C-alpha cells in the first residue's frame, strides 16, 4: 500500500491537528450546566469553573447600576444573586419573569458574575393560550 502512504500521512496530520485544536479548546470553553441547588452542593469546586445557570428572573429584581445589571434568579425556590458584567446588550426577551440562562463564574461573595445572559420568555415561540384564556390549557401539547 505504498502508493497511499503519502495520503495516509497527510490525512493523519490534518485529523491530528484538528483533534489537538478541539481538545485544547475544550478546557477553556466548557461550561457546566448546573441548577441553583447543585451550585450550593458543589462547595469549593463551584468557584473558578465556568458555569451556566438557568432560572426565572424574580419579579422586580432587575436593578441597573451604571453599566452593571443586577437581578435574582429563582429555580425551585432557590435564589441566586446575579450581576451582569458583560458588554453586549441584554436580550430583548430579558425581563421580570422571563427564563434566563446566565453564563459566568460564582464569586466568593456569593454573587454570580455573568458575562453572558440569554433569555427567552417562557412562551417565546409557543405560547400557551391558557395564559390568556383559562380553560384552554389542555389544548397545548
Amino acid at each position, binding site marked *: 500500500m505504498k*502508493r*497511499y502512504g*503519502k*495520503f495516509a500521512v*497527510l*490525512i493523519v496530520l*490534518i*485529523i491530528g*491537528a*484538528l483533534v489537538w*485544536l*478541539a481538545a*485544547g*479548546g*475544550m478546557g*477553556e*470553553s*466548557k*461550561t*457546566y*450546566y448546573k441548577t441553583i441547588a447543585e451550585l450550593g452542593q458543589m462547595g469549593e469546586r463551584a468557584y473558578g469553573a465556568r458555569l*451556566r445557570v*438557568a432560572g426565572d428572573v424574580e419579579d422586580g429584581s432587575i436593578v*441597573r447600576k451604571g*453599566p452593571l445589571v443586577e437581578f435574582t434568579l429563582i429555580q425551585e425556590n432557590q435564589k441566586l444573586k446575579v450581576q451582569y458584567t458583560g*458588554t*453586549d*446588550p*441584554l*436580550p*430583548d*426577551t430579558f*425581563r421580570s419573569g422571563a427564563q434566563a*440562562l446566565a*453564563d459566568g463564574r460564582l464569586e466568593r461573595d456569593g454573587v454570580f458574575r455573568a458575562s453572558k445572559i*440569554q433569555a*427567552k*420568555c417562557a*412562551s*417565546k*415561540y*409557543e*405560547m*400557551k*393560550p391558557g395564559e*390568556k*384564556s*383559562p*380553560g*384552554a390549557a389542555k*389544548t*397545548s*401539547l
Partner: protein
Amino acid sequence: MENLGYLAVLLAFCLSVYAVPASVVGRVRNKPFLIVSAERSVYAIWFLVTAASAILVYALMAGDFRFAYVASHSNRAMPAVYKFAAWWGGQEGSLLFWSWLLACYAVVVILLNRRRNRQIMPYVTAILMSVQAFFLLMNAFVANPFQMLAVDRLITAVPDGRGLNPQLQYFAMAIHPPMLYLGYVGFTVPFAFAVASLIRRMPGDAWIHTTRRWTLVTWLFQSIGILLGAKWAYHALGWGGYWAWDPVENASLLPWITATAFLHSVMMQEKKGMMKVWNVVLISSTFFLCIFGTFITRSGLISSVHAFAQSPLGRYFIAFLALGIAATVYLILDRLEFLKSEARLESVVSRESSFLFNNLILLASCFAVLWGTLFPKISELVSGEQISLDATWFNRLMIPIGLFLLFLTGVGPLFAWRRTSVDSLRRNFLWPSLASAALVAGLLLAGVRHIYALISFGFCVLVALTIVAEFYKGASAIAAKNHMNFARALLELTHRNTRRYGGYLVHMGIVLMFVGFTGAAFNRDATAEVSVGSSMRIGHYTLKVDRLTEGDNENYNWHRARLQVYKNGDYLGSLEPERRFYKANEQSLGHIGLRSRPHEDLYVNFASMSDDNTKAVIQAYIFPLVPWIWIGSAVLVFGTLVALVPSKVKMQYARTEVVGIARKYAPVEK
C-alpha cells in the same frame, strides 16, 4: 372548516401509507396498475395537503381565533405578510409546511419522470411517500394544527391572538424558513433516487445525472436560507452578530456541509468512477441531517436561544431516524460490490486528491459542529454533568478549517486530473502567490498583526486571482480564435461549460464572504447613556443625539433616537435606531440604525431607556467589511444559477452511461 382540514390531513396520511407498499408490490410483482395508483395517490396527497394548508392560512389571515394555532401565532394588528408567514411561524404549522413542500416535490418528481427512470421510479415513490407518511403522522396525531380552543363550552371567545413573535416580524425572517425548508425537504429527492438505485442494484451513476440539478437547486435554497438567517440575526438581534454557533444554526449548517461535499465528490464519480460508496453515504447523511435539523429545532433537545417549546415530537423523530439510518446502512453494506471504485489515486498534487481533501475537511468540520452541538448530551451520558461548549470553541476549530477550505477552493480546480506537473503549478500559481505575499507584507507594514486575518486576506487574494486568471485565459483564447470582443468571449466561455465557470463564480462568492468574515477581527464597540444634545464617540465617528421621540401604533409603541453622524467633523447624515414594545406579546425589540459602506458598517442599537426615562442607552459598533458577506452571497447565488444553465457544449463522459431497461416493466407510454 377545521374538520375538513383535519380530514384532509388524515386522508393524505392514509394515502401515503397506501402508496408505499402499492408502489413496491407493483414493481416486484409487475402490476402496472398498482404503480399507477401509487403515483396517483401522490397527486391526491398534494391536493389534500394543499387544501389543509389553504384552510390554515385562511384561518390565519381571517383571524379565526378559535384555532389554537391561530390564537397563539397571529393577531389582528399584524401586517398581512406576517399573518401569512405565521403558517411556518410555529410548531404545528411549520410541520404542515414541511409536508406540503414534500408533497410538491413528490409531484414534480413524478411529473418529470413519467417516461424516464421507470425501472427505479416505483422505489423513488415509495421512499418519498415513507417520509411523507412520517410527517403526515406528525401532522395528524402529534402536532395537529387544527386543534381548536373550546370556545363557547369552557371558555368565552378569544378576541385576539398573541401575535407572531416580534423578532420574527422581519422581512428576511419571513422568507428565511421557507428557503431553508425548501433546502431541507429537497434533499429527500436525491436521497430517494440514490437508495432506489441501490435497491435495484443499478451500477453506474444514472441517479447522479438525474438528480444533479435537484441537488444544486436544493443546495441553493439551503444556502439562501442560511444566509438570510445570518442577515436577519445581524439586523434584528441588535448585537451585530450573524453567526453564534447556536445549536439551531448548527443544525442548518450540518446538512449544508455534507451537501457541499456531495456536490464536489459527485464529480469524482462522474469523471473517474471513484468514491461511489462515499457519494451514497454523503447524500444519505445529508438527508438524515436535514431530518435531524428539523428534530433539533422542533424538540427542544438542546437548550438554545431559538429553542422551541419542549414537545413530545422528539421520540418520533428518533425512531424515524434510527429506522431510516439502519435501513440505509444495511442497504449500502449489502450492495457494496456495485459501488466498487474504477480508478485509484495517483498523486497527492492532483485534482482527485484535492477533492479527497476537500471532502475530508468538510466532513471533519461537519463532525466537529455535530460534536460541539451535541456535547451537552454526550457529556451528560458520560459523566452525568451537562457541559456545553461555547462559540470560542467553535471558532478555534472552525477558523483554521475554513481557511484551509478557502485555500483548497483556490488551488483544487487548477490541479490536473491524475497528477500535476511542476511546470503547470508555476504557470498557474506564480503571480497569484506573489500578489498574495505582497498584500500580506503590506498589511504587516500597515500594522495588522492578527494572524488569522493576515492568512485569510492572503488566501482571498490568491484564490480571487486564480479565478480571474482562469476566466481571462479562457476568454482571450476564444476571443483570438473567433475574433470576438472580450466581453462576448467571456459569455461564450461561460456558456460552453456553465458547470465549471458557474462553479468558479460560486468560489468567488465564497472568497468575498471570507473577506467579510475576516472583518470581524477588527470589530469595535462603545456603549453610552446619552440625552438630547450630548454625543458619543466610536472610532472616527461622533454620534450626536438630535432628538428622542416616542409614539404608538396598533402593533407596538416605540422610542426613537435621531443620531447625527459626524466623521472627523464632517456631517454624514443621521441614523434612527428604535426600541419597540410589541403589545400583543408584551415584548420589546430593538430596531437598529445602520450606515453601510463597502469598507465598514456603522451599526447603532437603541438598547433601552435609562431608569429615569430621560436618557437613551445607545450601543454603537463598527463592523469592518461586513457588506462583503452579502455581496459574496449574491455572487454565490448568481454562480449557482449559471451552473444550472445547460452547457452549450455537452460534456462527453468517457465512461458509458447506463441505458434504461424500462419498457419491459413499467407502464411507459411511448
